[in-house]
């Protein structure tokens, strides 16, 4: 309290100017942690979605299980894993992937379900096999809804990566955690603010990129996808 009044400031631009390399390195680390989590999450979700679509009875247990994972608070989920996988990147990724599954599977299944029956019929009439129908017709038509899911998963993951600072990873969360230990000084608050602002900016940038990707991938659909 006294220190804070004595130092006066809340934010130190000189700290930022002196640590641009550091900020860049942590931003890249943040993107890598996010990229791995979303990519692995998408691969697992695609497999589980195909299973759920093919064998309908598996859908409720799949959403139940991924729903439980989604409900477990992030700090607790990481804490569960630490005794097993240690303070490692693997611990962070297992936790991060777990949170993407529910969103990605729900949107993939909902997207494929929403493909009009008439379209599926026509494709069958044209001689598509089950596999061809899924990859060439259903999946592309479901793409707007699937990408809406990927957007939510990516933005959520970028936020959660900051928490992994507590298990020795963290990307930009590193600055937030270090700022916490120096919270009474402007250097500390500066780091908290930098970690937060860059992380939010990253989320917004990735979200916009995915919107752009969707427009390119689905030129036939300029309508807004329902999230």
């Amino acid at each position, binding site marked *: 309290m006294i220190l804070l009044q004595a130092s006066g400031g809340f934010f130190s631009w000189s700290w930022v100017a002196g640590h641009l390399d550091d900020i860049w390195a942590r931003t890249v680390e943040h993107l890598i942690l996010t990229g791995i989590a979303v990519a692995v999450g998408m691969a697992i979700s695609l497999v589980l979605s195909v299973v759920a679509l093919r064998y309908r009875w598996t859908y409720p247990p799949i959403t139940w299980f991924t729903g439980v994972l989604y*409900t*477990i*608070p992030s700090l*607790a*989920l990481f804490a569960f894993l*630490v*005794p*097993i996988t240690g303070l490692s990147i693997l611990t962070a990724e297992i936790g991060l992937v777990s949170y993407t599954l529910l969103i990605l599977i729900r949107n993939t299944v909902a997207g494929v379900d929403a493909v009009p029956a008439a379209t599926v019929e026509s494709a069958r009439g044209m001689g598509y096999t089950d596999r061809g129908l899924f990859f060439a017709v259903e999946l592309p038509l479901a793409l707007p809804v699937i990408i809406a899911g990927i957007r939510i998963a990516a933005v959520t993951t970028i936020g959660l990566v900051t928490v992994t600072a507590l298990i020795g990873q963290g990307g930009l*969360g590193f600055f937030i955690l270090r700022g916490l230990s120096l919270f009474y000084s402007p250097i500390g608050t500066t780091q*908290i603010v930098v970690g937060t602002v860059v992380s939010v900016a990253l989320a917004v940038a990735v979200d916009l990129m995915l919107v752009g990707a969707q427009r390119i991938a689905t030129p036939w659909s300029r309508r807004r996808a329902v999230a």
Partner: protein
Amino acid sequence: MIGFLGDVLSWFGDPSNWIGPAGILNRLREHVQITVAATAVSAALAIAPAVWLAHRRIGGTFVVAVVNIGRAIPSFAIVVLFLPISIRLGLGIGFWPTFLALLFLAVPPMFTNAYTGVAEVEADLVEASRGMGMTDREVLTKVEIPMASPVILAAVRVAAVQVAATATLGALVGWGGLGRFIVDGFAVQDNVTVFAGAVLVAGLAIVTEVILAAVERWIVPTTLRSRAAEVETVAA
């Protein structure tokens, strides 16, 4: 692994871990206390303005923007950020930074879900009510609010679970709660306490979800139940 789980079990079996200011019971009380307080105050702040604005059809674009931005702000960052803010305001560490961070995180999704719930009541229904001669106030209280109630209740449930989860992080800014076991366990590299804390926190989040879902099923009429499903996608 078996030995480790045995250690966790004996940790739970040790009465000294249950009682006293740092015991499970007191930490649970602190956790539930701040969760209930933050959820109740957020609901009070968010729901009435949301319902009224949705009734007047004001601010739809704003609502969409809030949902997107809200998702991008890491809760960990908010909890930490409210520590220097709370100190500047003279509120100190512990309860206040945690409580304010929880409000900041819970109000926007509750607002937007309640808004969406009312805004998505079918236009035909509202038209028909007006045609029957209902006043503006009657349309709101007898049609829009009852029709939106499943969505609003689901919004409260989703927010409460999120608040219970985020309250765990309060341990980082000097608050008690069940997060203490995890954070303190990390600090001294005591994996048994960390794991036990994780069990307690996860258990509380799941129990909160199950209890509130049951309350919802009990209150909401069968015919309106499908409406509550909408909120999941909005809040997820």
